[in-house]
Every structure is written in C-alpha cells, then in structure tokens.
C-alpha cells in the first residue's frame, strides 16, 4: 500500500509510483509519519502506541480470565511470571525486594519485547512514499519502537532515575546522596584521624569514587539505550539487507534470529534494570558493617 501523502510536499511536483521506484533504505532515526502542531509522530512512536494497545488488550483479557484454578492462558502467564520472579530473586537475593522491583522489570520486558517483535512484522511493508533529498523514499508505518534512540533513551533514563528514586525510598535520601557526594566520608576524616590516620588518604579517594559514580549513572543510561538501539537497529538492517539480496525464503532464518534477539535484548534490559534497582536499594554502610562483623567473626 503506497500513497503520496506528506505535509511538506503539497506544493511540489507529484510523482506517481510508476514513474519512479521509491528508495527503500533504513535511517538511523525514526521517520515522521504525520505532524500534530509541534509534535512529530514517528513510525517508532506509532509502533509503541500499537505495543501499548496490544499489552493493554492482553492485560484486560487476562484480568477476566483469572480463576483460582487456572486455565491454559493463566497457567502460561503464571509460569512466565513465576520464572521471571525466580530470576529476579537470583539477582536481588531477597524475595521482598524482588516483589517490589518485579512489576517494573516485567513491564520493561513486555514493552521492549512487543516493540522489538512489532518491528519484524510484515506490516512494515505498509507505509508512505515521501519526496526526499535522494528522490522518492519509502517510509514504513511500523518501525520497531526500540529501533529509535528516543524510545531506548526514555527507558534507560526511567530505569536509572527510577533506581535512584527507589534507593531514596528504600535506604533514605541522605544515604543515596552520599553514594554520589560522600560528605559522610569527608566528615570521618576529623572523627577517625586519631585511630586510623590512613583515613586522610582513603576518604578523599572514596569521595572521588562517589563523584565518578555520578558519571557512571550517565554511562548506564548511554550503555542501556545504545545497546538496545544498536542490537534492534542492526537486526532491522540485517533483515532489509537480506530481503534486498534475496527476497524469498533467505530472510526467514534471520527473522527467527531477530525474534530470539528481541527476547534476549528485552531480558538483558529488564535484568539490568533489576540490577540497578538492587544497587539503588543497597546500603553500602550497612554492607560494610556486615562485612566488618563477618571479618571479626571469622577472625
């Protein structure tokens, strides 16, 4: 389904599809589909809306299928949830903490998974043809939501920011703040200098490490967002390349590969989210005390 519809090209010469074959290439960024005042609706955003709709419909459908004695669908969902919770337990090592983090992690997982898989659907063959710098360009309606850096960036920011907010609620604002700007350790210079003179060297180093942690938080955002974007985008490039080389049969194994990659990437992102939340909720002072107590006990 190809149609000539763009807002900007109304005054330009209209070329019919049979006059020129549109270029089919993948851009690093999501292409705009339509504009709503100052807001650009890209194909990745459109895919995300579809993903939200699908998840919402599935959640509604599941809600009314829940029974004390589970049916097939509920059983499957329970197996997924139970497995995911066990995996969460392996990361946190604490069921109570896992139960708190789990809803966010599983939401991240499903949101990314559906977005990844939607990009693989043949519905991507539906789109519009736009007049671009290199002639007519085909813009698909659906582009994997996670194949747009804006989506992965939003998720990464929420993950890292959420982990810190979770840390504030779990261990308190002061302790969370001291993870980055360790004023407490600077204060210990004056209190511990008599008993431990080495604190004069250790404390500034620890303080500096705390500052590096701030940089680390931005690194987390960058690594999370670019890893997911890179993998999904590379997958789409691979599929388009294969389809361009041999249109039939050959891309099928790569489609399966991308289905798998979609699951793995969603899993990695959600596990990392759990890890960041666990780190956010961990109290270094308490851990140090615990380690010290263990050392004393061992001695």
């Amino acid at each position: 389904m190809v149609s000539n519809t763009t807002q900007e090209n109304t005054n330009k010469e209209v070329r019919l599809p049979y006059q020129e074959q549109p270029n089919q290439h993948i851009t690093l960024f999501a292409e705009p589909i339509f504009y709503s005042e100052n807001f650009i609706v890209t194909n990745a955003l459109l895919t995300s809306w579809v993903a939200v709709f699908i998840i919402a419909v599935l959640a509604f459908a599941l809600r009314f299928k829940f029974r004390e004695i589970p049916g097939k669908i509920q059983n499957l969902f329970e197996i997924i949830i139970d497995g995911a919770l066990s995996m969460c337990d392996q990361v946190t090592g604490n069921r109570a903490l896992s139960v708190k983090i789990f809803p966010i992690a599983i939401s991240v997982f499903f949101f990314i998974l559906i977005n990844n898989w939607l990009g693989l659907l043949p519905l991507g063959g539906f789109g519009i043809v736009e007049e671009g710098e290199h002639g007519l360009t085909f813009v698909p309606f659906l582009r994997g939501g996670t194949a747009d850096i804006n989506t992965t960036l939003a998720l990464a920011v929420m993950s890292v920011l959420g982990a810190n907010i979770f840390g504030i609620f779990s261990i308190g604002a002061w302790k969370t703040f001291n993870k980055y700007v360790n004023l407490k350790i600077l204060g210990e210079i004056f209190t511990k200098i008599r008993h431990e003179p080495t604190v004069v060297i250790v404390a500034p180093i620890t303080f500096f490490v705390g500052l590096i942690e701030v940089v680390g938080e931005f690194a987390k955002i960058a690594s999370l967002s670019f890893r997911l974007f890179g993998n999904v985008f590379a997958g789409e490039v691979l599929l388009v390349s294969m389809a361009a080389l041999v249109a039939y049969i050959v891309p099928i194994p790569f489609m399966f590969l991308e289905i798998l990659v979609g699951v793995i990437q969603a899993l990695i992102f959600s596990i990392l989210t759990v890890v960041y939340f666990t780190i956010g909720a961990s109290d270094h002072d308490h851990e140090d005390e615990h380690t010290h107590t263990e050392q004393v006990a061992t001695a």
Partner: protein
Amino acid sequence: MDSIISTFHIDWKIIIAQAVNFGIVFAVLYVFALKPLGKFMEERGKKIEAGINNAEKSNELLQKATEEYNQNTIKLKQISVNAHNELQRDLERLRADHVAKIKADNDEWVKKRTEQMAIDKKVLVEEAKSEITSLATLMVEKLIKDKTELKDL
C-alpha cells in the same frame, strides 16, 4: 553532543511520549495483570500451605491413631484371651455343678420313685390279697348255696 542529537534525531518530546507509553504499560500491567494474579497466587499458595500443614497434622493424627489402635488391639487381644480362659473355667465349673446337681436330682428322683413303687406294690398286693379273699369267700358262699339248693330239691 549536538551532532549526536542531530544524527539520531533525539527529541525530548518523543522521549516524554515514550516515557508516558511505558507508564501506561506499567500501570495497565500492574492493575490488570500483576496485582490480581499476585493476589490469586498468594491465596492459592496460602491454601496449599494450609493444605500441606493439615495433611501433616492428619498424618501425625493417623500415626497416633494407628499406634493407639495397635496398642488397643494388643490389649483387647490380651483381655479377650483372659476372658476366654476365665469363661472356659467358669463354664467347666458350671457344667460340673450342673452335672452334679442333675445327678443328685436324678438320684433323689430314682430313690423317690423306687420308694413310691415299693409303696404302690405293697398297696397292690394288699388289694389283691383282699380281692382274692373276697372272691374266695364268694365262691364258698356260692358253693354252699348251690349245695343247699340241691338238697332242698
């Protein structure tokens, strides 16, 4: 930084839109799927736990009851054996008593009957004797009478 933004078309509006999308997904999943399912699973877990506890208690009770039953069975067997022996002894004693009593009754009855038969025999003999005497008297009378009548003729 600007080059990254322009290369990847990073747009804060789309970032916010995607964050909102994720927020909706989280809310919907939490309210309609995770929370109710968690509730169901927790209730079921509690029921299973209670069931297991009950089963353990029932098993303990069963074991106790079995032990009690076995002990009671042994006791009852002993009691029944004792009772059986006692009863057998009582029965033998009773039988002996009865036999002795019956024998004594029988002997007495035989004695009584023998005595009665002796009395009856004596009475019968006496009666027979008197009967014979009266018959003899009648015969003599009749003979005398007949001889007298013949003489008259």
